[in-house]
Structure formats: C-alpha cells, structure tokens
C-alpha cells in the first residue's frame, strides 16, 4: 500500500467524520460523542498497555477526578469550563505522577492491582464528600463555551470531541515514531536491555503513565460538560475494565485500535441494552456485565491481538523508502591508544552463599581487544554484568575512563560510552531491524516527548536513521532494514545486537559470545569487522568459547575459573600455560 493511498484513506475518514452531523440521526451523533470520549481514554490505555506494557484498571478513576474537578470549579465555584480543564489537568497529572512514582519501579502486576485499589478509593471519596454532593453527584454543570457560543447540543460538542481526539491521535502517532516513542515501545519485555542502552526506563514509564492519565482527563472534562452532571457511578472500576476491554478488543498495539474498540464496545453495549430486557426482563443489568465479562475472557483467550492488527495483516505491506542520506551524528573522541581505559580492582560478587566472581582484577587499555575466557560457570557473564552496571558488585572498584563507576546506574555507564551485547540475545523481536539499531542511538540524540509529538525532531531523526542504516550495512544486515528482528536466525540476531551497540558510538564494546550460532564464513566476517573497529581506535572486551576465533583475534587474554582469575597474557603464552590446559582439558596424568 503506497503512502498516497494511506493519506487518501485518512482524508476521506476525516471528511466523513467532519460532516457526520449533517447526515446521521441525532441519536447517532450522541453515540459518536460517547465513542469519541471513550476513545480518548482507550488511546491512553493503548499507549500504556499496548505500547508500554503496563496494565491499568484505574483510568476511569482519572476520568472521574477530572470530571469532578471541572464540575466543582464550574457548577459550584462559577468559574469558566476552561479553567475547569486547567484544574483537571493539573490535579490528575499530579495524582498520576505520585501514583506512578510509587508503583512503576515494581513488577507490572503491582501497578495493576493498585489501580483497582485506588480506583475504588477515589470512587468512595467522591461518594462520601459532602461538598461534592455525596453519591448524588453535582448537577447543573454548565456547557463549554467557545467565544460566546455555548456547546449545548450533542451535534455542537461533537466537533470539539472529535477535534481533540484527532489531534491526540496525531500527536501520539508522531510520538511513537520518535526517539522517546521507540524507548516506550522497547519497554515491553524487561528493562535489562533498555537500561543498557542508556534509557531511563522509569522516567519513560512515568511520563507514559501521566500522558495516559491526561488523555483520561480530557475525556472526563468533555464528559462532565456534555452530560452536564457528574456522579460517582460512571467512574467506578467496572468502567475501568470496560475501557481496557475497548483498547484490547480494538487492538492495543495500534493507535486506531482505541477508536475501533471504543466504537465497537459502545455500539455493542447499546444493542445489548436494547435486546437483553427482551430475553431476561428482570436481571438485564447484571446479565449485561456477565455477558461482557465472558466475551472479554473469550476474546483474551482466542484473539488477544485485537481487530486492527488483524485487519492490518490482511492489507498489503506498505512500501517504505530507505532512510535518506543525512549528516552523520556527532562522534565521540576516542581516547589515545594505549592509555588505561577500564580497570577492575578486586571485584567480588556474591549471590547468597555462592561467590560467582571472586577478587578479580584486570585492566583494559584503549584500542586493544581483550578476550575473557574460561570454562562454563567460570563467572565470565557475571563479570560482564558487573562491568556494565547490570549487577552491583559486592566488593571492589571499577573505574572507566578515569571515573569511578562502581555504584553508577547502568544507564549512566551506557552514556559514558560502554555498549554491550548479551549472551541471551535481547532484542525487540516485533520491532524492525532499523528500529532496533535506532534504539542504540538513544544516548547520542536528545529529542524529548514534546519535540517528538510536535515533529520538531525531524532533522535529528533523519541523522539517526541514516546512522542506523550505516551500522546495519556495516555488519552486513543492510538489505532489509524493515524486516522484523524476530524473523532473523539466532546468529544474525547477535550481529544485530552488535550493530545496535555500534550505533551508540561507544568507547568500549563489550561482546558476550558474539560468534555463537554463526557459520564459519560469518565468523570470519565478524572477526574482520572487529579488527576494523580496533583499527579505528575502539576498545573491545569479548567473551567467547570458540578458541580459534579468540586466539586469532585478541591482543591479550584473561582466563577465569571458578570465579577467580587464573592467568592473563598474550594468546600464545596463555595457550602454553599448564594451568589453563588443566582447566580446559583436565589434569595431565
């Protein structure tokens, strides 16, 4: 599908929406108003759940806080609805920031459980505050006025609702295509990789959470001034799971999923409310909840991805152009060859009673390739995790480029210029090759949330995309940059990790078994690449089991056994060392 057809489809859709009140029945316009409002909440859930991997059952509570704030400000205090909006945004944003700060460091299910709890707490608060009308709510909420025109009818507020929704969709779309959007998309699947790329995962999560809450705020504000009345009931936890259902049924990985899901569930609910009383007159209300819950469970069991991804899979692949040539990103100055770059002094790491790394010291000089070898279980990967800050050392000191990084956070170490690959490949399989490599440029680029959403980042983004393509070509994966990373064979996934690490323009490249799973020709090509990088002045630390590969490549070797350093020296002397031979081959009888 060419970009032109997509643009045409969007234009037609917007035109149809803009003229809808002219040709559809008033009842349908009201329905569309509700769909638009719910889609705003669902859009927040798409960003939170589908993109960022966090599940919230409490979006309805944020919507409620917003609706009550604006109702209090306008109906009780007599301010303008626009001031009500401001108050709602500030209050909800602050609430979300506090709740997020408390829960987002923990595993995902703690956040989700606490969303239920605070959803209930907020519901009971509304219902029990005298000044907010207890469970009866606040009546006589004034309509929103634009200029001197009050938006009284459902066909008037319609334009405001869908205007806000379309702008929100556009901004979200821009954001997802930006530097921060990529970081958001990479949150799913654990933070070990994300932090190793210099991304502050907590901050990205927190801002995503606040954005989702603010979208619910807009919805709550519109809701309050459209229905002209607020009470606790529309904002309880049942409603919260309904919003989640909308986003997931529509397709939580897609922005449009929010709109499609909101439309489908709202229409379905309407139909159910019409027909259920005919089947079961007495208990229709409860049957509705049962029916929807069961439908949702069946949906989650059999069609988790939702409608939009399913439809998108039927459409022909969009043709995408290769990134255009752009000015390269600024590079770091490499330290002078031969100067000490990294030193580990007496590093020890314990896991309970097990000592995985015991009193290991070594030094790495700028511009050399150092091999770290040893039998399985010698503690090599743990040593790597200590050096890159993925694990804290129990004792010892690590310095890098003159600075003490012993207790420094992983992402700061990444920013200082250490890039790594993982023994168990950590990529985002559902992101394209180029997006995976672009993640590597995170520390070299600076666009934030706002500049991403407003497309002020395009110049920098072009340079980053160009850089990513250059690195992909360099490692030999430049043919199909839009292939999904999960479709590559394992060996090539390791190579892709190297391209991602190179995109960070590191001073020190730390490779954990890069040749595992490669064929002979590919290994030769990899060795060639690493030599070329050394010539450019890059320092490389490598763990590898393929001795031929290591011996022909590295300048020096450190041998570890049972967590301790056994020997260090040049390849020939290490190969001749009796202790090394004993460690690998057993004692010579």
């Amino acid at each position, binding site marked *: 599908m060419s970009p032109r057809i997509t643009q045409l489809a969007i234009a037609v859709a917007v035109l149809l929406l803009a003229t809808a009140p002219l040709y559809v029945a008033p009842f349908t316009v009201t329905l569309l108003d509700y769909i638009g409002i719910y889609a705003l909440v669902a859009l927040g859930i798409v960003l939170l759940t589908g993109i960022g991997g966090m599940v919230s059952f409490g979006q309805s509570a944020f919507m409620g806080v917003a609706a009550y704030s604006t109702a209090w400000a306008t109906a009780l205090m007599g301010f303008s609805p626009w001031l009500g909006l401001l108050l709602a945004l500030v209050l909800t944003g602050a609430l979300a920031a506090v709740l997020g700060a*408390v829960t987002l460091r923990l595993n995902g299910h703690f956040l989700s459980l606490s969303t239920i709890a605070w959803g209930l707490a907020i519901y009971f*608060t509304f219902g029990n505050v005298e000044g907010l009308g207890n469970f009866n709510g606040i009546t006589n909420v004034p309509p929103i006025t634009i200029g001197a025109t009050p938006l009284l009818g459902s066909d008037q507020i319609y334009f405001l609702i869908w205007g806000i929704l379309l702008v929100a969709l556009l901004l979200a779309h821009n954001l997802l295509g930006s530097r921060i959007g990529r970081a958001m998309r990479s949150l799913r699947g654990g933070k070990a990789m994300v932090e190793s790329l210099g991304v502050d995962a907590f901050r990205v999560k927190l801002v995503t959470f606040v954005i989702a809450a603010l979208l619910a705020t807009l919805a709550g504000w519109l809701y309050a001034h459209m229905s002209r009345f607020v009470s606790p009931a529309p904002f309880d936890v049942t409603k919260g799971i309904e919003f989640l259902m909308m986003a997931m049924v529509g397709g939580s990985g897609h922005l449009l999923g929010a709109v499609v899901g909101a439309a489908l569930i709202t229409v379905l609910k309407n139909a159910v409310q019409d027909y259920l009383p005919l089947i079961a007159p007495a208990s229709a209300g409860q049957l509705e909840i049962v029916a929807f819950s069961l439908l949702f469970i069946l949906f*989650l069991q059999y069609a988790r991805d939702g409608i939009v991804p399913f439809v998108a899979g039927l459409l022909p692949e969009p043709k995408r152009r290769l990134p255009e040539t752009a000015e390269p990103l600024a590079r770091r100055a490499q330290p002078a060859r031969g100067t000490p770059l990294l030193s580990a002094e007496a590093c020890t790491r314990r896991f309970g009673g097990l000592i995985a790394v015991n009193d290991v010291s070594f030094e790495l000089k700028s511009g050399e390739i150092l091999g770290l070898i040893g039998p399985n279980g010698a503690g090599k990967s743990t040593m790597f995790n200590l050096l890159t800050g993925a*694990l804290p050392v129990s004792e010892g000191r690590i310095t890098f480029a003159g600075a003490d990084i012993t207790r420094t956070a992983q992402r700061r170490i990444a920013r200082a210029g250490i890039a790594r690959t993982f023994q168990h490949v950590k990529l985002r399989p559902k992101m394209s090759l180029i997006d995976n490599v672009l993640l590597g440029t995170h520390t070299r680029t600076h666009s934030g949330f706002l500049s991403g959403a407003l497309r002020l980042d395009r110049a920098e983004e072009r340079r980053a995309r160009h850089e990513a393509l250059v690195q992909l070509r360099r490692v030999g994966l430049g043919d199909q940059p839009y292939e999904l990373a999960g479709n590559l064979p394992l060996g090539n996934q390791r190579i892709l990790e190297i391209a991602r690490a190179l995109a960070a323009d590191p001073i020190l490249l730390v490779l954990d078994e890069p040749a595992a799973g490669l064929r002979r020709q590919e290994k030769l090509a990899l060795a060639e690449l690493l030599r070329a990088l050394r010539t450019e002045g890059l320092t490389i630390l490598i763990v590898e089991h393929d001795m031929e590969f290591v011996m022909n490549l590295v300048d020096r070797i450190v041998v570890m056994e049972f967590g301790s350093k056994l020997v260090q020296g040049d390849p020939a002397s290490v190969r001749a060392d009796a202790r090394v031979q004993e460690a690998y081959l057993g004692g010579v009888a």
Partner: protein
Amino acid sequence: MTSDIAAFLTIDGIATGAIYVLIALGIVLIFTVTRVIFVPFGDIAAFTALSLAALEMKQLPGTVGLVAVLAVLATLVETASLLRTGKARQVPRALLFYLVLPMIPVALVWIAAGGDIPLPLRIILALALILPIAPLLDRLVFRPIADGTVLLLLTVSVALHFALVGLGLLFFGPEGVRTEALTDAVWIVGGIPIAGQSILIVVAAIVFSGLLFAFFGFTLAGKSLHATAVNRTGARLMGIRPERTGTIAYLLGSLLAGVSGILIAPVNTMFYDSGFLLGLKAFVGAIIGGLVSFPVTAIGSLCVGILESFAAFQSSAFKEVIVFSILIPVLLWRSYTSAHREEDIDE
C-alpha cells in the same frame, strides 16, 4: 480515644484481620503456584456465606446451580479437547473428575436442603459445595492461557470477578444475609468484652495457617506445590504436573476462602457483591507480603484489619479510602527495598 476503646478496636481489628489472613494466604498460594492473581477469592468467600445462609433458611443455595453449570461446561471443554488430541481413553477419567466429583456435593445439598440440618453439617455442606468452583473456573478460564503473561492472567482474573458478581446476583438475589452466630459466648478480660466469635475466627485462622504450613512441610503433594511455585519448568522435569498442582492449590485456596466466609457471615451482613471489598483488602495484605511471603502476608493482613477497625471508628464513611490509601506507603517501601532483586529477575 481512651485505652479501653483502643484495646477494643485492636481486638475487633485482629478478628477482621484474621479473616483477611485466610483469604490472602489463598491468594499468595495460587499466585506462587499458577502465577494467576485470583481476584475472585473474595467472591468465593461471599458465596460460601450466602450458601450457608440459604441452608439455614431451608432454601436451596444458588451455588447448586452455579456449580452444576460450571461442571457441565468444564466437562464439555475437557472432553472436546481430549477427543481433539486423540486421547479418547481418558474421557471416563475426565467425566469422573469434572462431572461426577463436583456433582456429589451438589446432589447432597439438593437432597438435604429444606430439611433441618444441624449447624456443623450445614457448614460442611456449604464448604463442600464451594470447593469445586475455583478448580472448575481454572479449567475453563485459565488453563487455555496458562502460559500467558502475569498481566494477561490478571486481566482475565478481573474480568472473571465481574462475571461472577453478575452471576452471584442471578443465583443468590439481591438480599443481604447474616447467619446465626456460631457462639454467643462473651468474655470480659480486664474490662474489655471479647466475643467468642472473635476468638473463634482467630483460632480458625491460626489452625488453618498451621495446616497449610504442615501441608507444605510434611506431605509430598505440598512439596510438589512448593516445587512448582519455585520453578515451574524444573518441577515439570521432576514429573510434577503443573495442572494438577494448580488444581490442588485452587482447592486449598477455596477451602481457606470458604472458611473465612463462614466465619464472617455471622458478623457482617453479606451480599452477592460483598466479596470484592473483602478480597481487595486481603490483596492489600498479600501485597504487603510481596505476593510471595506467607508470614509477611499474614502479618500484613492483620494490620489491614486493625487499620480498618480504627479507621471505621474515626470516620466510617472513609474507612475504605483509608484502607486502600495505605497501599501507597506500602508500595513505596517495597519499591525501595526490593528494587535490586527485581532487577535480577527481570525478563
């Protein structure tokens, strides 16, 4: 507040907290074994109370219909999946476990309901009736997605809770019930009245927690449960079937929730939807225990009960708000004490 009132509130809170302990232990048990955060445990407790009340009023409890429907559905699903995978020889076994066994308490209650049943028998019948619900729900709802993420399982679990509340209204009706007291005894200790019921609740909580501990420590089934909780794959390699341990965990958890339902029924008026708040407060306790530690969960649940009791005295309208608000400091504390460990186990 005088010290007398404080002592009274504390005792009251411990009794309430003991109820949460029972439910919370079940929640942690299920979570560690199956990774499912089983939100509907509160509903199981409420349904037990409602069943007991129905038997007391010589009516047929709604649970009978619920269990029958679930048993038939589970049998159909299990038989279909066995036939599809060419394991027709296991069908009789499936019929026994998914249809015959759950139907035994249903049949017994069907026969006995309406007559004069002595209290202990009523309690046993109500518990027997409630036991099959969670394992049947497990077969129907969670087993098809057993390998899903914790968040997927949690989402399904929340949806399941709402389905159950709706079904609760259909099967039990909207009336609140309160069963007859298990004991009327009241002791005065140092000028503070202590209800026999409170003592009973606390004793039951201690006995059943002790039984759970003994089960884990001294029986093979308990050890296989523990093994599955520590490492599913490893347990599987040792010949432990996660589905089976899952069923045992659900049965045990249901028993704990059922007992708590029976204990709370004479003290609080129970409605078809009372289970949600009951369950959520137990969750606060379970979260204090990080959803892994049984002892910390028990202590946490007791604290929730005591806090609720004091909150109700200070401001009854806001007691729920206060109870749920303590989640914030609790989570804050957890996020700083367990930050490093979370990093290790991430992914």
